[in-house]
């Protein structure tokens, strides 16, 4: 047993050092493409670190959103940037020392906060466990996200929507038509899309009792849509105008509507225990579709217009 724990500790130390090294490399990289690749690698190692910390819910979210979709968003943003001279780095610019100083102060502040934490904090775990029965679900993380601290999730959905509004208000028009994807990519996407939809549905359903839920399912569904967009499927014409807007607001709107309905009965963003399971499931389904379409629309990077029945 001794040897095994030593090996596990060695693995954890290597993982921690690897994360720090990757973070340093990606911040120092002058090549933006390389920095994005390092960021995705960082996200995957981070997901592994969450697994080691016994937080599979966070690991799933980190792998799907932190590494996967954010990587795709960064790549899409990079493709839209004018190509710039990479020999000119931020470090050569005036005032960079001020940024470094600020970052150093933040790091020192955060470090002192972490060091001043009490060694063993009881946390809210016991309280959540004792109230889990009235939450309507069996997974404590889902119970916190959608019942005990529902307004956090509501505000997160709003933030996603605001981000999309920001992208749309930049007013970029649709790019020129790209050439169709090759046979290999098309076949891969045809294989993966049904599988990704199945995985998303599973994650959504499993969220009530196990790691999973709306954000993870939405991210997987968004990944399927990003793949379809990359392979040249005209998703932006299939879902545009009012239909698109309705799907985008479905999650937040259901949240607000439910909050309004239960406000007088049990209070703000609380649900009657006998219906909580069903209500949370309805919320999660609506949120999943909203999250998926919002993320895919962010990747698209412009507001799709209703098709004018052109020749194609």
């Amino acid at each position, binding site marked *: 047993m001794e040897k095994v724990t030593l090996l596990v500790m060695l693995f954890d130390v290597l993982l921690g050092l690897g994360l720090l090294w990757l973070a340093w490399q990606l911040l120092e990289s002058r090549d933006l493409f390389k920095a994005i690749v390092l960021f995705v690698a960082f996200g995957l190692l981070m997901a592994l670190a969450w697994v080691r910390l016994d937080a599979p819910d966070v690991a799933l979210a980190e792998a799907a959103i932190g590494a996967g979709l954010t990587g795709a968003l960064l790549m899409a943003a990079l493709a839209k940037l004018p190509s710039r001279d990479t020999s000119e780095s931020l470090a050569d610019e005036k005032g960079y020392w001020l940024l470094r100083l600020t970052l150093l102060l933040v790091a020192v502040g955060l470090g002192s906060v972490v060091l001043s934490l009490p060694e063993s904090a009881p946390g809210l775990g016991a309280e959540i466990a004792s109230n889990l029965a009235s939450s309507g679900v069996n997974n404590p993380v889902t119970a916190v996200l959608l019942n005990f601290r529902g307004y956090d999730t509501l505000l997160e959905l709003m933030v996603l929507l605001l981000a999309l509004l920001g992208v749309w208000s930049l007013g970029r028009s649709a790019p020129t038509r790209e050439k169709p994807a*090759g046979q*290999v*990519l098309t*076949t*891969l996407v045809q*294989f*993966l899309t049904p*599988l990704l939809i199945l995985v998303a549905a599973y994650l959504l359903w499993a969220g009530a009792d196990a790691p999973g839920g709306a954000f993870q399912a939405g991210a997987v569904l968004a990944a399927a849509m990003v793949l379809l967009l990359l392979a040249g499927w005209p998703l932006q014409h299939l879902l545009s105008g009012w239909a698109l807007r309705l799907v985008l607001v479905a999650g937040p709107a259901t949240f607000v509507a439910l909050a309004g309905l239960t406000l007088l009965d049990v209070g703000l963003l609380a649900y009657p225990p006998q219906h909580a399971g069903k209500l949370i499931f309805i919320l999660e389904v609506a949120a999943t579709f909203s999250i998926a379409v919002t993320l895919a629309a962010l990747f698209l990077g412009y507001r799709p217009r209703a098709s004018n029945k052109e020749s194609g």
Partner: protein
Amino acid sequence: MSASDYLSATLLIAGGFFFLAGTVGLLRFPDLYTRLHALTKADNVGLGLMIAGLAIQAESWAVVGKLLLIWGLVLLAGASVAHLIASSALKQGVRPWKK
């Protein structure tokens, strides 16, 4: 340790060897195409051996099925992505290495 333990240990170590060889190839090979070759070899065969080693230890056939599914997905993604990278590099004019 039973015979099946020895068998899975052998398979896992063999898989680890393929990953090591693939990593060395990725670092040492002269151009993008040969590096891709090294990388996909490690992913396909190395992971296959590891999956086989783990499948022997699996508690149920459902777990074996999940392990095989993981391998199949990595095979599919690895082969497709290697092809996409190589073909887009060829289109951008990256010349294959010649001795």
